[in-house]
């Protein structure tokens, strides 16, 4: 049988693959997020520069806030690129916090055991979310809302059953303290974790076959499936990654604050999605980049600490972020229309 071979030789080198640099820059998914971060930084540097916003401690503070959010938002963003949401992420942070506190504060075992149990817990939550969503074809929005409530309730019950209390102290020690809860000058180690998580996510999206599958899954699951992409497996893996990101943030915050709290990280349900969207991830999936999410998280850190340094009410942060989110969604929507050829 005449098996058709594709073109092999020819003068491929003569084809120019780059267009004008400005166009390619603006076409990048991270352009909007970078602009948002830059404008917010400029605004607060001018308004609050004298109040300590630009001091090393100030910078360390907003970088810490951004980094903890960024650790959660990076895998959440990948999941959103694949077309799914995870609302249970905040409860995973809180659940992890309880686990670490129960292990180190109540049973007084090594923090590493807390870390290991947290990782196992997060993997199971991610698997449950992923399998329920892919098997039932229900919207992940409602499935993860349900698991969020179950985790919060279940973990509180477990804590009372084991320790008789829901507020526990956590005790970091040894290498674990250095890895998850140390500072260099005023800069918290979470910044390093943020960079590592984002670098990994970025590498996966840009340079691996799996990254191509993630974009395709979110772009159109039917098309991806017809091309042979294991869409369900891609989603389950990303749900597990999202939960693990939440667990990492939970471990870092619990060992740093030395306190276990179920409500820890509950804000990430919203801020995680906001950071991803401000960073250029499309709500409908199929488009976005981990580098963009860095800018989304950075914007959040800059605004929340900027508002603090200005001496404004902390609620103003919400107002700012809400406005930015709205602008980002509008910009992303326009971009999508343009890319779909309907602008």
């Amino acid at each position, binding site marked *: 049988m005449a098996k058709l071979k594709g073109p092999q030789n020819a003068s491929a080198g003569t084809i120019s693959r780059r267009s004008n640099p400005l166009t390619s820059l603006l076409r990048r998914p991270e352009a909007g997020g970078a602009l948002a971060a830059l404008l917010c930084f400029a605004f607060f540097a001018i308004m609050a520069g004298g109040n300590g916003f630009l001091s090393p401690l100030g910078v360390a503070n907003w970088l810490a806030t951004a980094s903890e959010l960024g650790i959660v938002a990076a895998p959440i963003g990948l999941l959103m690129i694949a077309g799914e949401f995870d609302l249970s992420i905040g409860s995973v942070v809180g659940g992890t916090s309880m686990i670490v506190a129960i292990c180190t504060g109540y049973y007084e075992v090594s923090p590493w055991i807390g870390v290991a149990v947290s990782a196992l817990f997060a993997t199971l939550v991610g698997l449950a979310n992923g399998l329920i969503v892919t098997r039932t074809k229900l919207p992940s929005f409602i499935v993860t809302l349900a698991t969020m409530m179950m985790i919060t309730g279940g973990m509180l019950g477990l804590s009372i059953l084991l320790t008789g209390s829901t507020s526990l102290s956590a005790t970091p020690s040894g290498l674990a303290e250095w890895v998850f809860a140390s500072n260099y000058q005023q800069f918290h180690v979470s910044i390093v974790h943020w960079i590592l998580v984002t670098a990994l996510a970025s590498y996966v999206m840009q340079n691996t076959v799996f990254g*191509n599958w993630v974009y395709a899954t979110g772009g159109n699951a039917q098309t991806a499936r017809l091309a042979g992409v294991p869409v369900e497996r891609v989603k389950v893996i990303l749900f597990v990654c999202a939960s693990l990101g939440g667990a990492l943030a939970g471990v870092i915050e619990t060992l740093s604050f030395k306190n276990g709290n179920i409500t820890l990280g509950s804000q990430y349900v919203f801020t995680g999605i906001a950071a991803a969207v401000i960073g250029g991830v499309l709500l409908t999936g*199929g*488009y976005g980049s981990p580098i963009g999410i860095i800018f989304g998280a950075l914007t959040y850190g800059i605004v929340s600490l900027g508002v603090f340094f200005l001496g404004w009410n902390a609620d103003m942060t919400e107002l700012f972020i809400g406005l930015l989110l709205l602008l980002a969604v509008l910009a992303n929507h326009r971009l999508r229309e343009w*890319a779909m050829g309907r602008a």
Partner: protein
Amino acid sequence: MTEPIIELRNVTKRFVGVTAVANLSLALRPGEVFCLLGENGAGKSTLIKLLTGVEAPSEGEILVDGRTVHFRSPRAAREYGIATVYQEVGTLPLMSVARNFVLGAEPTTGRGLFRRFDKEKAATLALQTLRELGISRVADGDQLVGTLSGGERQALAIGRAVHFGARLLVLDEPTAALGVRESATVLRLIEKVRTRGVAVLFITHNAYHAYAAGDRFMVLRRGEMLASFDKGEKSIGEVIELMAGGAELQSLLTAGEAGVVGT
């Protein structure tokens, strides 16, 4: 005459209460464009589903390279080199030309943990294939597919299928949503693909498009073959009449004439 790649012999497909395709036989040969014409509900979609492994025939057999096969899934049909290009879901608008082209068969470089997606090679393959299909306006592998024209998108989907080993290309209404110039691009694509020795099943409503591209023609009506003829056997006027007014035509013909049209 060359051996057919795929052949249907006396195939019937019944759904509950409905016979979608009745006792149909056809052969698709390499380097030939087979046009399937007919109104909605004529059985075209069912025929595509039978050929691409989505449905199994109730009666009759499907042969690939002269041997009887039973496709268990669309994937099984694809492994025999049967590729369908879907107009709506053929490409992903928010992904680059290069990423679209290699989706599901991504080239890689490096080994083990360092095995990574070869973007350069993906772009080179995509642009080269597009150029061979006569699309020269696309010169950037990073360009988003959503910014391509309808014809260019079809070229990408068709080129992709052929590059990854399609021997039979099923094109379901590839010109339906396109303007005149874009349709011409797609017809040229079909011609290019045919000269490479691929069998093409071209499903269309448009008699002019069919007439311009086709080697063999079959008109379906209510799951049955109404007419079957080769290029040059009928004028375009006759083809249009067959397509548009099959029913009226039948009723106006004498028994003898109906026999001629029916074979």
